[in-house]
């Protein structure tokens, strides 16, 4: 079954049944009682399979998955760290999983306490006043953060501020979120060292600037050293500072965005705080704010009165951004992670992530081109192979890595370089794993010289070979029915 490659509909046989239903509890209920408009005209076309068919199908399909539990996953900017199993144990407790969001405050005091204490822990870690945990993921957090920025200016009666400054190294979600929020984007270039060019930032600042979005360390893995100066300039023109928390991992317990002068930030619980992600979620994107913006946080808010927890709205709130309280199951995992590490251990997360990234970078810079020298934080970027004469591109390297059992790093991002390979090993990998990865990367670099055609046609031993991405993008087949053999 190694090359099992079927859809469940393809193993369907008419009449085959894998279930037996119990007696109906609803007595004489009849579908004929439903209004005609609510009744389907043809039976649902469900696959007809036995129990064993279903079990084999999904076991074989799941064996093709690649995850952190399968192998090394150095996908830059995604912080694919290992998610400790204690997180899952805690999140599976029936005391939480059987809750309903419509229950009375009195009957969910434990859940409200968890929400409140996680928000407090994030506020302590980030140096901000208060957090909402309601946004569903990172980009949703960004949008919520920008809505807070806009609300802050509107409530002051300052309606001219319609522009947001975004560095050219930013995550694509930054300008996208700003545009969705109805703000205009102004790009600020980077210096050759990869950090924001303060001299080019200064002329952009006036009374139309709502704020600046920054990622620190930025997407090149470089720590932005001019933050105090940038904060002074942006605050000086009346704007706010937004911190994209995608890269918070290396700073945990060491320095705090709030202390640097940031007013708003989002955190990706599914990156920094070890909750599962990939394949579309679920994520969680809590947003924290400085004291001046607390009243604008979205509804509902969880507050503490004496030793009781309550749910409140707030007259100046920007409104609701999610159903109920966001992805509560993800919050439970992050809460378990923070408590199991504790205040002292959490400081080692960033140290080890930084050490691992620098170890890989220094071990490979004699065969991959390192455009920005020096010590990086948790991740770094190569600009393709050092020897480009063979025509082997970053895409080819990434595909060849699949043959060696590694998930490919992030490629062609950031856009500052033409052949970006962005590597983030995270703190949870051992030196042995890193050494094996380094050896694989060196092997690919050698193969690019010895047998470039083989690398250009990789992968060779995966269940499917190189895909035709152009056709997939132009003529996607989205339904089984549209698939013509």
């Amino acid at each position, binding site marked *: 079954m190694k090359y099992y490659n079927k859809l469940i509909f393809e193993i369907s046989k008419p009449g085959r049944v894998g279930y037996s239903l119990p007696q109906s509890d609803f007595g004489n209920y009849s579908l004929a009682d439903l209004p005609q408009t609510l009744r389907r005209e043809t039976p649902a076309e469900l696959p007809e399979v036995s129990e064993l068919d279903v079990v084999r199908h999904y076991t074989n399909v799941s064996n093709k998955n690649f995850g952190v539990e399968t192998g090394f996953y150095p996908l830059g900017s995604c912080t694919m760290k290992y998610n400790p199993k204690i997180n899952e144990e805690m999140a599976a407790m029936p005391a939480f999983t059987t809750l309903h969001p419509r229950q009375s405050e009195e009957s969910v005091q434990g859940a409200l306490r968890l929400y409140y204490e996680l928000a407090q822990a994030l506020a302590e870690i980030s140096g901000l006043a208060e957090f909402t945990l309601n946004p569903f993921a990172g980009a949703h957090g960004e949008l919520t953060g920008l809505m807070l920025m806009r609300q802050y200016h509107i409530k002051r009666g300052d309606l001219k501020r319609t522009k947001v400054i975004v560095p050219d190294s930013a995550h694509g979600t930054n300008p996208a979120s700003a545009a969705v929020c109805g703000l205009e984007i102004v790009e600020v270039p980077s210096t050759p060292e990869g950090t924001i060019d303060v001299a080019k930032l200064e002329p952009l600042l006036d009374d139309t600037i709502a704020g600046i979005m920054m990622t620190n360390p930025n997407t090149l893995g470089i720590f932005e050293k001019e933050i105090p100066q940038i904060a002074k300039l942006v605050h000086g023109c009346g704007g706010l500072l937004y911190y994209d928390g995608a890269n918070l991992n290396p700073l945990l317990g060491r320095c705090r965005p709030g202390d640097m002068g940031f007013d708003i930030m989002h955190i990706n619980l599914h990156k920094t705080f070890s909750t599962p992600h990939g394949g579309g979620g679920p994520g969680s994107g809590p947003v924290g704010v400085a004291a001046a913006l607390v009243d604008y946080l979205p509804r509902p808010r969880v507050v503490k009165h004496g030793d009781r927890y309550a749910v409140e709205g707030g007259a100046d709130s920007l409104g609701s951004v999610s159903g109920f309280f966001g992805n509560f199951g993800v919050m439970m995992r992050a809460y378990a992670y923070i408590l199991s590490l504790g205040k002292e251990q959490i400081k080692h997360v960033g140290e080890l992530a930084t050490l691992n990234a620098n170890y890989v970078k220094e071990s490979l810079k004699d065969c991959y081109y390192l455009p920005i020298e020096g010590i990086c934080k948790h991740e770094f970027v190569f600009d393709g192979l050092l020897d480009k004469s063979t025509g082997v591109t970053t*895409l080819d390297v990434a595909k060849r890595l699949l043959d060696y059992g590694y998930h490919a790093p992030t490629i*062609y*991002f950031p*856009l500052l370089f*033409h052949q970006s390979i962005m590597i983030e090993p995270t703190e949870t990998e051992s030196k042995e794993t890193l050494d094996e990865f380094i050896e694989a990367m060196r092997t690919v670099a050698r193969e690019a010289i010895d047998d470039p055609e083989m690398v250009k046609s990789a992968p060779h031993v995966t269940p499917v070979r190189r895909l035709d*991405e*152009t056709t997939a*993008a*132009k003529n996607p087949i989205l339904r089984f029915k549209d698939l013509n053999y």
Partner: protein
Amino acid sequence: MSTVLDGLYYSESHEWLKVEGEFGYIGITDYAQHQLGSVVYVDLPEVDDELNQGEEFGAVESVKAASDLLSPISGTVVEINEALEDKPELLNEDAFNNWICKVTISDPEELKNLMDAEAYKAICE
């Protein structure tokens, strides 16, 4: 490596401009299509759109990335190359023979801000 044609004007963001009287044809360079890889979609401007030199007027999407198109010149769009709607790969096949839009040039003085083939070749190296 990439081809650069004499007689055209070039921008730093890799668009070319061909001037014919009061009209200008705008496209992306061979270097740009090479860096982008297989183009899968061209977001074209509309006729009568006002373009400003250096500002975004559309986008080119490839399997690698989506890149904004920055207009090499200010002017009004009089015609768009509709063939690119169905066959965006024309930009890969021949970037210089497949213009993206035709404009009336509003200020010929702006041509001074663009490069000639010689200068553009230098930045592509």
